[in-house]
């Protein structure tokens, strides 16, 4: 991890860091490299990836139209909403 990669990651994840936090996080990545090195000691060339820990099949059910929540209810937790819309800053100048 270096400052340029960290800058790209913070931009991608819509975060901003102080200089002290940047140094702290770069040090964290360096520590995790040690763990990754330990993983690389294990030969996994012929090992299948394990995405689900249990043998879970895709659950298929009938499509049934329903309206569990009203628009008003869904907008009740919005930081800013009105007249049925979520209110945000102007996007197009």
């Amino acid at each position: 991890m270096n400052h340029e990669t960290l800058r790209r990651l913070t931009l991608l994840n819509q975060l901003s860091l102080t200089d002290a936090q940047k140094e702290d996080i770069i040090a964290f990545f360096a520590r995790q490299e040690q763990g990754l090195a330990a993983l690389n000691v294990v030969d996994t060339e012929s090992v299948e990836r394990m995405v689900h820990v249990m043998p879970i099949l895709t659950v298929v059910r009938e499509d049934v139209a329903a309206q569990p929540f009203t628009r008003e209810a869904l907008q009740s937790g919005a930081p800013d909403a009105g007249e049925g819309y979520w209110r945000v800053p102007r996007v197009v100048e």
Partner: protein
Amino acid sequence: MKLYTSKAETAAASVVVVDDMILTKEMPTAAGSKMLEGYRSLFDAEMITRLHAAGYEIGGKAAVGEFAIDLVGETAYDGACVADGILRNAAAEIIKAGEAKAVVGLDVNGSVRRAAAQNGLISVKPTYGTVSRYGTVPVACSGETVSVMAKTAADCREILEAIAGHDDKDGTSLSEECCAQIKSGGSIAKPAKVAVITGCNLTPDAEAAAKLSAFGAMLEQNGISVTAVDAGVLTTASAAWNILMSAELCNNVSRYDGIKYGYRTENFENIDELYTNSRTEAFGVLLKTAILYGSDALSSENYMKVYDKALRIRRVIADAFAALFAQYDAVLMPACSKMVYTEADVQADRYISFAENCYTAPASITGLPVVVAGGVQMIGKAFAEPMLFAMAELYEKEGK
């Protein structure tokens, strides 16, 4: 100790508290994060519905650390529970005070198990998929599990049986037949052979090591063979889980943008600043670090060598457990390297939970059931909860 809401009016015997990772209609859910401060869900988690149906009252909510990835709750946005410099876990304090029969919470990175071990309580992290995660705040969906903490194994089991079962609303929920296996009933085979894992990444201190020794000695006194086994490949679980947990967390918390719900900054002039400043002001440093670590693992440069590698290591660890369970009925491990965490521990290393999880990650990454009793973890093969509870009850009867 912080309870957002305490509305119980009945006796503690019928009161269950849930932690702040569980959605409740009647009480706010913040997941320990400023991002969700004051957020109120439109629906109850499935386990809340089941607890109500079984006659329990939800007595309140226990604070958790931000998105439950820390040690025992110290990163909660409104402050850690601390007494005399010692970090306290809200759920454990509620149970010790006798305010509730049990606390149901989400075990993401081992905090429930560590808290139970350090406070002399019993906890169960059931087999992945046996308790619905519908209505839990999603963090690391492939391994996080709804767990129960209580004073006794009987209370733990009683609550687990009330909330376990298939749920169509959770795509990872196992069949009713599978879920039924974790419930009591019929004769429970007493374990004959147990392995004690040694050589973990962190060496437990004298007190934690003594807990493990005492538990092993108690089992031997009851005719159960106890054999020390080197951790071997299980030592890779922490690094692999840190990758998978962070990658899943990165995706799951991407929904918090200050628009649809949650915190919105007042400091913005355009939409990009709204997104960035909302997330920057609301998220703590540990969470930001996990987001960035997960994002890096999922990047095109690192996907195969980091994320894909961790998925393969997950199978290696599952195979290692399968080999252990071919020889032994259960596996004993410490739950934590020390029986008390202090503020100084976290000040010295804010990322301590990413190392301390060397004990909890093996079961998190494989979805295996764990019962904590006597300060140690007992890990069994899938659906072995009745046998693990039997060992906990043995400890209660003879080990205390």
